[in-house]
């Protein structure tokens, strides 16, 4: 059951990324390029995604467990720390450079061509080294 739900969720996510145009790097860079030919599509995608998701959080508040019986996520942390800001800024620069973020990078693999595999390989490498950098950051903060 858990696996069927994961497959359904992933399929909806993949279809949504494809249909919305978020696997088109020109659309993403067009959204970020406020001094160029600005493309507002991404705002509609975010808005469209926010509605079912906000409803789901309302339902979550009334439930003790997930449908498959496991725990539901706890309330969000309010901690704004250095890894959150630094990580988001680094991600943003990479996102602007290529116009790809992790979801669309996966969704466009089958039809995007060799460049998408190169981007994926680099992304996985970045993800693999992140824990070491994070523990260094934590130590640097602790030393202050």
């Amino acid at each position: 059951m858990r696996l069927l739900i994961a497959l359904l969720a992933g399929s909806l996510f993949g279809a949504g990324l494809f249909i919305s145009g978020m696997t088109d790097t020109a659309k993403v860079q067009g959204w970020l390029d406020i001094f160029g030919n600005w493309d507002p599509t991404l705002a509609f995608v975010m808005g469209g995604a926010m509605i079912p998701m906000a409803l789901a959080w309302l339902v979550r508040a009334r439930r003790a467990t997930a449908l498959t019986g496991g725990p539901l996520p706890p309330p969000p942390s309010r901690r704004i720390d250095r890894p959150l800001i630094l990580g988001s800024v680094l991600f943003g620069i990479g996102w602007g450079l290529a116009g790809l973020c992790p979801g669309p990078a996966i969704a466009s693999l089958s039809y995007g061509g060799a460049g998408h595999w190169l981007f994926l390989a680099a992304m996985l490498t970045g993800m693999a080294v992140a824990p070491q950098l994070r523990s260094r950051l934590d130590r640097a903060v602790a030393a202050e």
Partner: protein
Amino acid sequence: MPMDWIWGLIGGALIGTGGAVYLLGNGRIMGASGIIGGLVDGSGRNTAVERIVFLAGVVLLPVLLTPVYRSVDTHLTENALVLVAAGLLVGLGTRLANGCTSGHGVCGMSRLSLRGFVATLSYILAGGLAVVLFRHVLGAI
């Protein structure tokens, strides 16, 4: 294309529905970087099969949709240096920040998470500055 915003809205609603199914069904927050990253660094070993099945859905649906869709050109740069630098930054950054556009943006902001708003504002500002700098000032992308 003038109808792009409608496709954006429909696609966005599908993305949000996927997140709702994953949250209420399995109790998980749908973050692409978290799902992939947990496989890469071993932190998601216990849920590896579920993660792989989710990602299979993400890859598979575009395969099924490409024959009926209007355009499948992704306009990705062919500059290998840009691709490698961007990939490294995206991978590293999303893991440091514990989330990307799906986790912090879609799932975080929809529950009014402060971290979600701060992360989303940070990566949109940084992305905007990167495009201005590398496209309009340096002409590199």
